[in-house]
């Protein structure tokens, strides 16, 4: 059970290098992080997974991008959420591991149909701490509403959740303790936070029925 920060953006996208972010993540209580971009060499004390984020307008585009060499080499593939039909379609794509930026979509963009498919296929929904930490006013209220809605769907259908700091700097990284406090704002319990932080193994290597090879 590895505690994983599901998404960080190191230098040059942000102002902190990957090595520095791994040191900070280890101090903050994480065992692994997912890096968008180049994961570089091995880092002592912490596992670094390579992630890729797909921004697309249609399922066709997602499938096209998933087959590109840059995305194929990634350990974790995220897709930025869109409207209802897009989300329903994208959770059915085999190579997609998680949906990101759900807070930026319209209300009910991720509905019960998408939730059921996500649960069947083991596709996760990412909860970004950056939207709670950096946004203010109505935008943050909307993000909290979206996360509360996602949480109720998660409790009903059982699809996995991931939690990411979405940090571009060490100043954006938050400790496991802080994440627990922030997730409590939209009703997530400590056990649910622990499960979400350690759900990466389940997403990248889902439980499948035993196949007889011979």
């Amino acid at each position: 059970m590895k505690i994983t920060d599901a998404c960080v953006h190191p230098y040059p996208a942000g102002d902190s290098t990957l090595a520095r972010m791994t040191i900070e993540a280890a101090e903050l209580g994480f065992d692994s992080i997912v890096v968008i971009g180049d994961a570089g060499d091995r880092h002592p004390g912490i596992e670094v997974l390579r992630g890729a984020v797909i921004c697309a307008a249609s399922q066709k585009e997602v499938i096209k991008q998933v087959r590109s060499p840059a995305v194929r080499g990634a350990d974790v593939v995220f897709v930025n959420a869109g409207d209802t039909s897009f989300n329903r379609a994208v959770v059915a794509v085999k190579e997609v591991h998680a949906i990101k930026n759900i807070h930026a979509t319209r209300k009910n963009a991720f509905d019960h149909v998408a939730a059921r498919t996500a649960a069947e296929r083991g596709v996760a929904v990412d909860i970004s701490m950056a939207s709670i930490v950096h946004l203010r006013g109505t935008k943050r209220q909307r993000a909290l509403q979206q996360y509360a809605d996602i949480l109720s769907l998660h409790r009903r259908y059982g699809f996995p959740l991931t939690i990411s700091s979405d940090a571009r700097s060490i100043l954006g990284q938050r400790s496991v303790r802080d994440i627990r406090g922030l997730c409590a704002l939209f009703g997530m319990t400590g056990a649910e936070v622990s499960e979400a932080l350690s759900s990466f193994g389940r997403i990248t290597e889902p439980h499948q029925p035993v196949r007889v090879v011979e």
Partner: protein
Amino acid sequence: MKPRPPTMRGKRRYILARILPYGMAADQKQVYFSVIEAATSLFGDAAVGLAQPAVVFCEGGYVVVRCRRGAEKDIAAALATVNAIADERAALRTVAVSGTIRALRRRIKPIRPLSAAGDVKFGETYFTVYRYPRQKVDLVEKGIKHQKSLFFTEADLEER
């Protein structure tokens, strides 16, 4: 004025938080304004008024925030949403919560630069280099106000 007897006083909790970036010389008043702004925008005036947050002291890269007992989780969550102190990018990381300041003082481990600051040039920009324990290197752009900061390690600096 005669002080209230101890049994009549409200119970308090103290939260110790580390200020990032390390070298930041944060003013207590400015930290207080940042904490209040973050807490008020998150929980509203009524909840923050009841929680009674206050900055007790701010020194050595740490800040101690006082609040009413029972509100410490909310205030700790609010501290996690602090993005800036006096218009400078910053973060507060909760280290410990206790009922006494004395217990928190024992948890304070001052973080000071390892050696004298040096200079380095990236592209057209000059940065001052501050080295900290665990191979951490902070680069602060030379200038008067709103300098850019970069957070590297010793190995990253050698590569460049």
